[in-house]
C-alpha cells in the first residue's frame, strides 16, 4: 500500500492554503488591523448604571457591535482610570469630568474630536456652556454626557410658616430670612451648607464666589483670589459669619458632605440649601424625602457687588482615547458609540439624554430637548416648573480653577476654606494661601 508523501505539498494543498490565507487577509487580517469587529471598551463611574446598561444593549442590537462596559465608584474613578491609561489597558471611550480635562489632555490620554464631523455636528444643538467646557487650548475633546449647575433651593413650608412670601435674592436677605425663621420657631440652622471635604466642595465654593460676582483667576489664568474685592474673600467671609456670627449655618457643616446634606434637606430640617440641580428629582420624590413637594429652586442670591445672579456649572462628557482614534476600525466604532450615547441614536432621537433626565434627574446639554413635552412635564412635577432652572442654567459659569494642577491646588484650597469655617484663619489669610499655591503650581 502506498502512503501519500506528507513531506511534499501538493498543488491542491497549496491552492487551499493560498485561499485560506487570502480569506484571512481580507477578513480577519483587516479586522485585526482596523478593529471593525473588535468590541468597544467603555469605562464609566458607577452612575445611572441601569440606564447605561439598557442603552448599551440597544447599541449592540442596533450596530451588531459588542461593548465591554466597566464602571468604578466615583471616589476611585480618576485614580482607576489614570492607572489604566498609564498601563495601556484597552480603553476606547470613557466618561470624563471637566475638572480633569486639562491634565488628561496634557498627558495625551484624550483625543480631540475636532476632525470628527459625525460628533462635531452636535455642537449645533448643544448649550454653549457645555461645548466650551469640553474645549481645552482651542480643541474639543468630547461629547456631553450631562451638564448641570448648582441651584439654590428653599423649603416652601418653612418660609410660609415664618411669614416669608418670596425666597431671598441676595445673601444679605438669606441672613435676614434665616434669622426670622429662627425667631419664629423654625429650624435652628435654616441655611444648610455641605462644607465637608468632598469632591463637591469646589462646586459649592465656586457657586458662592460667582454669586458674589467674583472669580478665582483672571482671563490669563493668574490668581486673583487673594484680592479682597474679587469675590473669594467676600464669599468665604459670608460663610464664616453665617456660622459664627449669625449662627444660621451649623458649625457641623465642616463635616457635612453633599450626600448627608441631601438627607437633611430632604428630611425638612433646613429652609435653604445649595444642591446640584439633578438632585431635585430625588429631593421631591415622596418615596425618598419627607419634604418632597416643598423644595423649590430659586435663583442663586447675589452678593453686594454682583450685578446679576450667577452659579457654577459643570459637565461630564464622553471622551475618546488616542489609542482608539489611531486605529481606523476602533475609531469608527468609538465614534458610533459616542454618537449613540452623546448624540442621537439610530432612531434619530436624543433618547439617552431624555432617559437620564426622566429616570435620574440628570440635566442635558441638548437645547432642542427643552421643548419636549415630557421634559417640561418632568420639571413641573419635580421642580414646580423649569423656568427658574433654565434661567439659572443660562448664568452657569464653569470652574475657572480647572487647570492641569487643579487636583493638587484643590487639596490646599479645601484645607484653607475649612480653616476659615472653623474660625482658625481669616478669609484673607486663606485666600492668600490658596493664591500662593496656585502661583507655585502654575510656575
Amino acid at each position, binding site marked *: 500500500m502506498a502512503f501519500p508523501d506528507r513531506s511534499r505539498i501538493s498543488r491542491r494543498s497549496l491552492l487551499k492554503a493560498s485561499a485560506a490565507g487570502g480569506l484571512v487577509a481580507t477578513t480577519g487580517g483587516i479586522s485585526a488591523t482596523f478593529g471593525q469587529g473588535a468590541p468597544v471598551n467603555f469605562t464609566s463611574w458607577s452612575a445611572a448604571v441601569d440606564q447605561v446598561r439598557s442603552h448599551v444593549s440597544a447599541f449592540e442590537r442596533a450596530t451588531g457591535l459588542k461593548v465591554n462596559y466597566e464602571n468604578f465608584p466615583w471616589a476611585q474613578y480618576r*485614580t482607576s482610570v*489614570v*492607572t489604566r491609561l*498609564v498601563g495601556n489597558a484597552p480603553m476606547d471611550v470613557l466618561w470624563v469630568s471637566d475638572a480633569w480635562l486639562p*491634565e*488628561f489632555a*496634557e*498627558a*495625551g490620554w484624550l483625543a480631540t474630536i475636532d476632525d470628527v464631523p459625525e460628533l462635531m455636528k452636535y455642537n449645533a444643538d448643544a448649550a454653549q456652556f457645555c461645548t466650551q467646557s469640553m474645549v481645552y487650548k482651542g480643541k474639543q475633546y468630547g461629547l456631553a454626557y450631562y451638564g448641570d449647575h448648582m441651584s439654590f433651593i428653599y423649603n416652601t413650608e418653612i418660609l410660609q410658616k415664618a411669614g416669608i412670601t418670596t425666597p431671598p435674592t441676595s445673601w444679605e436677605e438669606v441672613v435676614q430670612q434665616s434669622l426670622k425663621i429662627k425667631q419664629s420657631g423654625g429650624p435652628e440652622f435654616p441655611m444648610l451648607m455641605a462644607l*465637608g*471635604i*468632598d469632591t463637591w466642595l469646589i462646586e459649592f465654593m465656586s457657586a458662592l464666589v460667582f454669586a458674589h460676582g467674583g472669580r478665582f483667576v483672571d482671563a490669563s489664568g493668574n490668581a486673583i483670589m487673594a484680592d479682597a474685592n474679587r469675590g473669594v474673600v467676600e464669599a468665604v467671609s459670608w460663610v464664616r459669619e453665617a456660622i459664627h456670627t449669625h449662627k444660621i449655618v*451649623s*458649625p*457641623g*457643616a*465642616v*463635616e457635612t458632605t453633599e450626600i448627608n446634606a441631601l438627607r*437633611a434637606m430632604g428630611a425638612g*430640617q433646613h429652609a435653604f440649601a445649595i444642591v446640584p440641580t439633578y438632585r431635585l428629582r430625588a429631593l421631591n420624590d415622596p418615596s425618598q424625602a419627607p419634604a418632597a413637594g416643598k423644595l423649590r429652586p430659586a435663583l442663586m442670591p447675589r452678593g453686594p457687588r454682583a450685578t446679576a445672579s450667577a452659579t457654577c456649572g459643570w459637565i461630564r462628557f464622553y471622551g475618546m482615547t488616542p489609542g482608539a482614534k489611531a486605529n481606523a476600525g476602533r475609531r469608527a466604532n468609538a465614534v458610533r458609540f459616542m454618537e449613540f450615547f452623546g448624540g442621537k441614536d439610530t432612531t434619530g432621537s436624543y433618547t439617552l439624554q431624555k432617559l437620564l433626565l426622566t429616570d435620574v434627574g440628570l440635566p442635558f446639554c441638548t437645547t432642542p430637548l427643552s421643548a419636549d413635552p415630557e421634559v417640561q412635564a418632568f420639571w413641573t412635577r419635580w421642580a414646580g416648573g423649569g423656568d427658574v432652572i433654565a434661567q439659572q442654567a443660562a448664568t452657569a459659569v464653569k470652574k475657572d480653577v480647572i487647570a*492641569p494642577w487643579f*487636583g*493638587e491646588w484643590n*487639596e490646599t484650597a*479645601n*484645607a484653607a476654606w*475649612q*480653616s476659615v*469655617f*472653623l474660625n*482658625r484663619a481669616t478669609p484673607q489669610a486663606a485666600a492668600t494661601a490658596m493664591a500662593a499655591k496656585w502661583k507655585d503650581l502654575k510656575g
Partner: protein
Amino acid sequence: MADTWADRLSRKAGYDERSAAILILPVFVVLMVVALYPIIYSFYTSLFDIVLTRPWRRPFVGYGNYARIFQDPMFWVAVQRTTVYTVVTVSITTVFALVVALLLNEAFPGRRLLSALILLPWATPSIVNGLMWKWIYDPGYGLLNGILVQVGLLESYTVWLGNPDRTLFMIANAAIWKQMPLAAILLLVSMKAIPQDLYRAATVDGANVFQRFWHVTLPALKPGLMLVLVYETMISIRHFDLFLIMTQGGPGDASYTLSWQIYVETFRNLKFGIGAALSYLLAIATFVLSYLFIRGFGSKS
C-alpha cells in the same frame, strides 16, 4: 554510638543543611517576589520624580523627594498629628487592655461569656467601625449627643469630629474601641503564664494587692506588654481607614496624619515618587520605634 534509623534515612535521602535550603527555596522565592521586591522597588521609585499625569517624564532626583518632604510644612503637621494620635491610642489601649486582662484573670460567673463578647469590637471590620463611629458622633442625629443631652451633660447637640480640638481624640477613641480587645487577650495569655507560687510567696511576705501587681504581675508581663506596645504602635502609626471614612484629613488639617499624606500624594496628586518616599519614612519610623521598645524592655529584664 550506632546510627538511629532516622539518621540513616536522613543520610539516604540527603537530608542535610543543603537539602533543607533547597526545600525552603520555593517559599524564599515567593517571599522575595511578594515582599522584598516591592520593598526594593518602592525605594527605587522614591528616587524618581514620578507623576502619573505627566507620563512622558520620569527624572531621577536621588534623595530630592526626601529633601522636598522635609521642606514641606504639611509633612511636619502630619508628623505632629501622627505623634499625638499614636501616643494617645497606644497608651490608652494598653492601659485599658491591662485593666480588662486583670479583670478577666479573676474567677467570676460569666467570665467565659464576657471574654468572648469583649472580642466583638476586634472582629468588626475597620470600615464598619469607622462608619459606626461617624454616625455616633454625628452633630445632627448622633447617638453620643442624644445620650449626653438626655442625661443632662449637654444642653444641646455639639460638634465632635468637626471640632479640630477634638477630632484626633474622637478618632483615637474609635481605634481604641476596636484594638483594645486583642491587646487585652494578649496580656491575659501572658498573665495566665505567671506561676501562682509567685503570688503565694508575695502574700506570705505581706504584699497587698497593689504590691503584688507592681512586683509580680507587671515584671512578668514585660514580654506581653512589649508585644502589645510594638503591635499597637505599628498599627496606630500607619492607621488610615478611620481617617478616610471619618474625616478625610479634616476638618482643615486637624487629622492630617502621615498615612493620610501618603494617600493624598500618591492617589490624589498621583505623585508616586513622593508617595513612595513618604512611605519609606513611615516604615523607618515604625521600625525605629519597634526597635526602641524591644531594646528598652530587653535591657530592663
